[in-house]
């Protein structure tokens, strides 16, 4: 069966020129994503997940390797790729609806052509009636929902999400995960979802890429064959636990092997020559 690789990254690496010297953030990381896929990337904090997504968005370059989106090498941000940041990143001087129109304004699109679409999206995330509210007047969950609508407003094919619900409390986070699955099945977007929570990754994704600690590189790839749509309560089923436990074991084994080889580095800032 042939499927188009919508994202194809081959052995990418990124070395930061930090103030205290060079920092090797990611090394030799590869990943393939097919159209319509829901891929999750898990890894400990500081392993280079944000660095990877910024590279995929074209906000900064990789220092080694090749990265393609829609069969074109990434050299700058593209309309087909939208990113949702770690925090809602709404502009505080704009109302909710002005924030949602922001990408279209930057792209010099006629907003009228998108009004119906956006109204529908707003209704879908239950934000109707808040168009004229300022971000500070909304809860964290509402802000992040607004940022999802903003990202979907101009209909990008690919959605990159960087721990989007990390700042939310556990209840809101679970709600947002379910909402995201709904949006995904409706819009047929390709989603790359970054998180440090293994449960969240397994609940959401078809494929889970596991990264090592910094410098982040491929540790394992899991295909999650849980039913779709994911039934409510699946996170309490044995099948779900098994996969999560399996991933956790892999991570623990890797850390132990590195400790024994004396190669284990803790998460704090360390530099390479």
């Amino acid at each position, binding site marked *: 069966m042939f499927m188009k690789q919508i994202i194809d990254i081959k052995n990418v690496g990124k070395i*930061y*020129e*930090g103030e205290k010297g060079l920092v090797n953030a990611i090394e030799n990381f590869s990943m393939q994503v097919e159209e319509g896929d829901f891929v999750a990337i898990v890894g400990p904090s500081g392993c280079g997940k*944000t*660095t990877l997504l*910024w590279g995929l*968005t*074209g*906000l*900064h*370059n*990789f220092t080694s390797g*090749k990265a393609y989106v829609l069969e074109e*090498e*990434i*050299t*700058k*941000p*593209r*309309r087909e*790729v*939208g*990113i949702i*940041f*770690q*925090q809602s*990143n709404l*502009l*505080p*001087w704009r109302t909710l609806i002005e924030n949602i129109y*922001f*990408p279209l*304004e*930057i*792209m010099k699109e006629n907003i009228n052509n998108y009004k119906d679409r956006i109204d529908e999206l707003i209704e879908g995330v239950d934000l109707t009636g808040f168009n004229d509210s*300022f971000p*500070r007047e909304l809860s964290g969950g509402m802000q992040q929902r607004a940022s999802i609508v903003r990202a979907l407003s*101009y209909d990008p094919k690919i959605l990159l999400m960087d721990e989007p619900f990390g*700042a939310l409390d556990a209840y809101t986070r679970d709600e947002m995960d379910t909402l995201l699955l709904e949006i995904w099945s409706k819009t047929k977007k390709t989603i790359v979802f970054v998180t440090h929570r293994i449960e969240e990754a397994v609940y959401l994704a078809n494929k889970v890429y596991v990264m090592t600690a910094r410098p982040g590189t491929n540790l394992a790839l899991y295909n999650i064959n849980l039913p779709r749509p994911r039934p409510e309560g699946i996170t309490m089923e044995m099948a779900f636990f098994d996969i999560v436990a399996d991933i956790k074991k892999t991570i623990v084994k890797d850390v132990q092997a590195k400790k024994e080889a004396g190669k284990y580095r803790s998460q704090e800032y360390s530099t390479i020559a």
Partner: protein
Amino acid sequence: MGSKDYDKELQDKIPDFKEKEEEIPSAGSFDISSATSAVTIHGWKQILGIISVAVIVIGSWELLVRIFNVPTFVLPSPSAIIRALILSLPNIYTDFLFTLAELVSGYVIGASIGLILAALLIQVPFLEKIITPYILLLITTPTIALVPLLMLRFGFNIGPRIMAVALAVGPMVMINSVTGFRRTDLAKVALAKSYGASTSQIFLKIRFPLALPMINVGLLVGGIFGLITAVGSDMVGGKMGLGNKLSYYGSLARMDAFFGVIILVAATGISIWILISWIGRKWASWKE
């Protein structure tokens, strides 16, 4: 990879969302909220309080001057001041308009140049570091000290006074605007870039709104500095302006008329403050 296509600012940085951007303190800058809340009036109790203080102070001033029969040239009573102000109005309204014209033209020129220079300067961080000390120097040197020099060179008409006002307002607006523009929020810049924003779009839609509260502080403080300089320049030379009338009445020991002019100056200052902070609250204030 074609790294030249990438933006230098984002090249080796990703924002740390956990920590707030640290505020960069700067000379002549302060928090807009404290500036505008000074004229925010909450409820009738505060209004009543403010009015009663005025009534008590002015009342006892009037009373004491009358009881002790203080001569007008030492300290005029409030009623004498008001009477003198009303009587001298036909004489001084042209001076008032003159000073106002001085202030408004100098302010518009100075503020525009200050704002434009700030916007340009911030593009070249190295240049900014070199020029900022000189701007500080301009702020700390009372511009009035330059007025005799300007008048010697450009005559005693309105020209040199406008220059003096512009010189007082410009640096104040500039240094605060630079502080505002420096307040870059990497995450917001990245957001705009992810939609393909151009440099000018990023300036207009991210950097400028981010800087607006600080620009407003500059405009506010600049307005008061401008007024001080305008009145001060009038005192230095020439035959027109409110400051000129201050010197005139002072030399004649006409303290009632003298204080009348001071009331006019103070009223102008308060109007400027209220107007600019109102504009600021309407257009240039946002909170995270």
